[in-house]
């Protein structure tokens, strides 16, 4: 089907997120306003105004009532999804890179960048039922060995017992949320060779997919951190997503934004590439963006996906029926 082009952002997209029911799509961009769309027809519902910098990441609670966003303005904010009202602001001394609600939505993990003398860190915050009771204290703060490297993504593991983090230092780490101890990390042999840009969990928290500038994406067991699959593509990977319905993974990326203007637009390979999750073979690609893909998200029903690019567009693709019968 023809993709729906959603033009609402003025700057490159950074993150996309569906709510659990799959009817709402949240998009973050380097302009300062996260935007809410109808996931079906791409109609814009509203924006969340209040940030004063690029918004890097967001997450929505299971009941679609709360939204948390992390921004380069050194804050993470809680929002009321329905009214767009700002509920609370967590202030950090450095830009926040990623946010993720825990199972049950009582906790959130927030990563902050290295900034002046502050080292990159992973913060765990308690999220109060009633925004009136919200406090900004961290329950737990974790730090990677090299505090100057960004932590691009941190998500909750099964049963909130672990936190999985990945970033510029190419290492994926699993932390114990009770003790704050490092439980496991990838070694040089199987790990990524360059900065990890993105991380995406399976719906049942059993495995996750990471994308890296080393032009590969890797699938890992979330409990043991064993490498299950590697998907090799020709371009740096900026965004990854997994189909909840079929055994497909989608990789998005493209050459660096700085090199784009000097070459043919096809040279960038700004495609969302589909791979068979099990056979690791390329199935096909979806073209369209006029710039690298920075964000990818699958609708929880697996029947549509959206991509956000450096070009400032969100493209919403509903799959044709042929897609569900692909044989390779």
């Amino acid at each position, binding site marked *: 089907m023809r993709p729906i082009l959603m033009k609402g952002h003025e700057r490159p997209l950074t993150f996309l997120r569906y709510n*659990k029911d799959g009817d709402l799509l949240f998009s973050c961009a380097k302009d300062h306003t996260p935007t809410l769309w109808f996931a079906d027809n791409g109609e814009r519902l509203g924006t969340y105004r209040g940030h004063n910098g690029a918004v890097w990441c967001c997450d929505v609670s299971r009941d679609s009532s709360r939204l948390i966003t992390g921004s380069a303005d050194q804050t993470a904010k809680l929002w009321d999804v329905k009214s767009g009202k700002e509920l609370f602001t967590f202030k950090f001394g450095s830009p926040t890179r990623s946010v993720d609600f825990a199972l049950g939505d009582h906790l959130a993990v927030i990563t902050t960048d290295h900034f002046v003398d502050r080292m990159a860190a992973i913060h765990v915050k308690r999220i109060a039922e009633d925004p009136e009771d919200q406090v900004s204290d961290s329950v737990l703060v974790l730090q990677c060995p090299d505090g100057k490297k960004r932590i691009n993504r941190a998500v909750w593991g099964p049963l909130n017992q672990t936190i999985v983090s990945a970033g510029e230092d190419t290492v994926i780490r699993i932390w114990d949320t009770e003790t704050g101890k490092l439980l496991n990390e990838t070694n040089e042999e199987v790990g990524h060779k360059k900065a990890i840009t993105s991380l995406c969990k399976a719906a049942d928290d059993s*495995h996750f997919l990471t994308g890296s500038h080393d032009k590969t994406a890797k699938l890992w067991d979330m409990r043991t951190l064993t490498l299950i699959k590697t998907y090799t593509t020709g371009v740096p990977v900026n965004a990854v997503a997994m189909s909840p319905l079929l055994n497909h993974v989608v990789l998005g990326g493209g050459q660096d934004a700085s090199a784009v203007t000097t070459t043919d637009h*096809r040279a960038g*390979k700004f495609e969302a590439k589909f791979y068979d999750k099990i056979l690791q073979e390329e199935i096909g690609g979806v073209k369209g963006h006029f710039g690298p893909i920075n964000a990818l998200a699958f609708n*929880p029903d697996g029947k549509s996906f959206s991509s956000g690019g450096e070009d400032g567009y969100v493209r919403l693709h509903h799959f044709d029926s042929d897609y569900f019968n692909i044989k390779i």
Partner: protein
Amino acid sequence: MEVVDIDARAAKLGINWSQVNFDSIQLPPGEDFGIESDDEAVYHDDQSEFDTGFGNIIVVDHLPVVPKEKFEKLEGVVKKIYNQLGVIKENGLWMPVDPDTKMTLGYCFIEFNTPQEAQNAKEKSHGYKLDKSHIFAVNMFDDFDRLMNVREEWEPPQARPYVPGENLQKWLTDDKARDQLVIRSGPDTEVYWNDARQKKPEPVHKRPYWTESYVQWSPLGTYLVTLHKQGAAVWGGADTFTRLMRYQHSMVKLVDFSPGEKYLVTYHSQEPSNPRDASKVEIKVFDVRTGRMMRDFKGSADEFSIGGPGGVAGASWPVFRWAGGKDDKYFAKLSKNTISVYETETFSLIDKKSMKVDNVVDICWSPTDSILSLFVPEQGGGNQPAKVALVQIPSKVELRQKNLFSVSDCKMYWQSSGEYLAVKVDRYTKTKKSTYSGFELFRIKERDIPIEVLELDNKNDKIIAFAWEPKGHRFAVIHGDQPRPDVSFYSMKTTQNTGRVSKLATLKAKQANALFWSPTGKYIILAGLKGFNGQLEFFNVDELETMATAEHFMATDIEWDPTGRYVATAVTSVHEMENGFTIWSFNGIVIYRILKDHFFQLAWRPRPPSFLTAEKEEEIAKNLKKYSKKYEAEDQDVSLLLSEQDREKRKALKDEWEKWVMQWKALHEEEKLARQNLRDGEVSDVEEDEYEAKEVEFEDLIDVTEEIVQESM
């Protein structure tokens, strides 16, 4: 230990430095605690002085024996000779005199500034004829001990047992008749079989850091040459690549083989310290099998080029161009106003002198015969016409020449079997503001070498590329000024017209700027590299039809395998992304693709020419059906096996995955309760049927109309 550390340590131990008498400290004998004594450092310095030794002294023997009166004269002569070869140290010449007779003893010692100069002087002056009865015998002073120990009686050298070498051409006996290719990516150099049946390359040999710059096959494929700081090395052998020979040439930059791969030419150039000077060039010619250096050439870059920008550091490579054929008999060098032709029996100039050709700018050997074509541009503002000439070597007889007027440039293209020579001539228009191109076609094998002039249909078209069909009579030209140029095919011989060139076809508006003929002829790839981003058109020239069009996006290199069955297209590291190569069949079907980051080079291993006679080849071509039966059956077997293997592999992967998923599911199930608790008792998990499918019947009355139907009976 740093001084600061020492101080800190002392403070900790409560030692006051001013109260310590260092001389009273006694270290156990033979133990220095890793502290180097100052005395030792001094001692080391002294040593290095001694090490320079006598390496810079030579002994010159067989000097005339002269009385005292003539001593100074002789000294003057010797000084004069050796000052040309190096800098003699002050008082560096010492000629001993018999204390009784005051006569010289017939030898002298000369000390040079450096051992290199001494070595050079020894090499250059050994055997120097001062006069009839005095021929210098020069030795290094350091060699004297060795020479003293030479036995008086001659002993026959022991015959070393013959060790049979490996079969260097074993790769040709591959039972699947595959070809090899070498690739370089990242630090690795890898050799593969191109296994088109299996649709993948089969590794032969892989070695990281095999070469320090690039690798190259010898022209007949026997050797692979690698370049190193110390020199070049060739590799080959029956099963794996073993090093067969090394050629010492420090900082070698380029190498070139003679066409029969008997000789290897290595090139090194030194950037001058003063930018106004020309760079220094050193070229060595080695015998490939013995590793012996046959000749070396040294000089400034000017001596190896005709000036102007071109090639590496001023000289255009290859500096020495080898005459065609497998005999490796002659090689030629072009320099200002001269062509120097050497022969390989003695590695000296033919007739001991080079050919003087004023202002010659280009030379080209026939690929099969020892015929040299040369081009001399116009001189004297057009008073003297430009000239293209064919010269027979070694007789230096001019076979044919043609004068050309108002020429701006010429380029010579030999057909691979040396039958034809095409000269692309760019001429000025009358206004001299622009140029147009035409061709002069020489038929070498015919009597008197007739020349034919060919102009394109549209004279003003720019010529973008030209290529002869290998071993054939046809050639292809890309011409035109438009963004999409035309491609024309011509034949030197057609059934109606044996003596004249005729046009076969013109293809209009093609996205092409380079031509790649199959090594067996008949097929050609019209390639659009660079600006066209890797457009490929596979064209059959016999039928004049396009077999396939394809694209290898951003392709930088195209190379046919030596048999003309497959083509490799590659994206090398000039581009940042999509590095790797693709193997195509001759008719444009993708066989397989390999992605490799930092991909530098791809080269097919050449094959030596076939031993079959032309008649036999023709016979095989005629009865191809009979011969191909066997191979078709093999092909089918392989493809069956492949699909079987593929199926099995997929099944295994799927099974493995299922196992994983089952494990996950089990764990997930176990943790169900825990999850519920975390969600404050909210039950719904995604996998539980949250949406209940209910069938709801819904009736809506939209409209009611009454129609009276009359029964028409």
